[in-house]
């Protein structure tokens, strides 16, 4: 071979996995020079910039940046090979999108085939895989890692208790009440004061989960046990696990019309 030695970087957050891949690569492609190893996505990008390798082996689940996110920043500079032990959605996408990938633990025969493919493509410019990558990224947002999630509703209320922030699941909240400067969060266990205003909460919470029944009250629909009418015709809401009665303002009585 007259051309200079091919170079590669291995990126995997688990050290034993890097060791294994390095050993296998030495067998499958002895001429390949591993110039660096990265333990996370950010390091992989930095090292790739430094060493300008021909090939980067990227684990998918890594801290910092996932393999797919890292690949998006590297794909037009080098050939990318993904490695994964189990990522159902990714493996499907790899097969459809003709992306190179390896399964852990790496099988020598399979690795040899992958190396042959890479050798054949070495001189050429890397495939443009941007479209496949963005698709993958979208899917992985919904997948178990869920780093790049779509705008979501607020699911946890943070209230200061002593020296720490208590995280209260919105499923535990019975209602919110404006209380002068603060907002009172009522749960079956007790009450907490937070600084977020009712208006802010109303905007951030799932409108199907919480209803604004009064200027100063936001109630969780699932917690409501009954709605009664008092002598003056006001609707009053009762919630489970609390003795408090919550008034429904005139403008919101349509929420509880009889069927």
């Amino acid at each position, binding site marked *: 071979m007259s051309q200079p030695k091919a170079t590669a970087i291995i990126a995997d957050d688990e050290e*034993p996995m890097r060791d294994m891949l390095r050993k296998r690569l030495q067998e499958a492609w002895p001429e390949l020079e591993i110039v660096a190893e990265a333990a996370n996505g950010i390091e992989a990008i930095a090292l790739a910039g430094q060493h300008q390798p021909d090939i980067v082996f990227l684990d998918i689940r890594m801290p*910092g940046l996932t393999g797919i996110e890292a690949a998006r920043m590297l794909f037009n500079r080098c050939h990318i090979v993904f490695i994964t032990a189990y990522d159902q959605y990714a493996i499907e996408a790899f097969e459809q999108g003709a992306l190179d990938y390896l399964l*852990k*633990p790496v099988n020598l025969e399979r690795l040899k085939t992958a190396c042959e493919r890479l050798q054949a493509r070495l001189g050429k410019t890397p495939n443009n895989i941007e479209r496949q990558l963005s698709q993958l990224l979208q899917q992985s947002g919904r997948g*178990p890692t869920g780093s790049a999630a779509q705008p979501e509703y607020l699911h946890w209320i943070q209230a200061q208790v002593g020296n720490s922030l208590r995280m209260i699941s919105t499923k535990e909240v019975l209602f919110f009440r404006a209380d002068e400067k603060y907002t009172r969060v009522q749960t079956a266990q007790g009450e907490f004061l937070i600084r977020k205003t009712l208006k802010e909460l109303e905007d951030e919470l799932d409108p199907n989960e919480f209803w604004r029944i009064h200027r100063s009250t936001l109630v969780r629909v699932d917690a409501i046990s009954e709605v009664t009418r008092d002598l003056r015709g006001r609707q009053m809401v009762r919630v489970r696990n609390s003795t408090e009665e919550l008034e429904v303002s005139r403008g919101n009585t349509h929420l509880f019309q009889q069927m």
Partner: protein
Amino acid sequence: MGNRTRSVLSFVGEIGDTASSLWWDFFDWLAQVPLRRLVVTWMLAFLLGLTPVLHPKQVAFFIIGSAGLKILAGGKRKAEIEARKSAAQAGTESLERRLVEAQMSALQAQVEPHFLFNTLALIGQLIETDPPEAAKIHTHLIEYLRATLPQMRSRGNGTLGRQIQMAHSYLAIMQARMKSRLSVSIDVPQELESATFPPMMLQILIENSIKHGLEPKVEGGRIDIRASVNGSVLQVDVQDDGIGFNAYAGDGVGLTNVRERLKLMYGTRAQLLIEQPMDGGCRASICIPFAPDIFAKP
């Protein structure tokens, strides 16, 4: 002036409320009372009417009025009351059903395939490079699966000691994979190991800590597991110094299941607390009534 009118109005309103509740109490009584007792009441009223205490006219009005009400509205009211009673009963039944369902889904809690495949890959690698270490990880994996797979789950899993043992296996595997990125400390007094503790709860908290707190953190971190008794409350903490908690992240199947099962098993006597200490990370605590299981083998 305006203030005074308001207070008078609210006083009138108060009287109205009392009167209406008294009226409905009377109405309920009338609807439910057996006819024989109603007739006895009428007789008494009639006798009283003959004495100078009551006016006969009023007594006659009462008797005719209540007879009319009993005939017209009694049946409907009675049906309403019965419907409410059976609804309450149905509520209790649905509570029991929910407990069974929650327990079932906890039993079906699956071993995460990602974890299983990565661990198997690790064992495969270690067989070549470090066989004794491979054997150790292999044993830990078996221990973990024995406690996690529903078909394998044996009796006696319901103690804290058993849950800690399982956590230990899981964390040993994670340490072999994450190496220096994960440090672990478990501080559970020996006398608490026989305490009753529901299965798969501690495990869910630990897996959350690793998955959402420490694995995504570049430099890794530590996880501390502590158990203590405060009066009659057993508290188990899982604390990490990971990337902390995302308030917009969904509640997840795991935490919802823990909360639901605690509520159904212990009512308001148990709690799942999740806190973010000021210096970062996340602390999840389960507080349940302390019950040493004297028959369980630790």
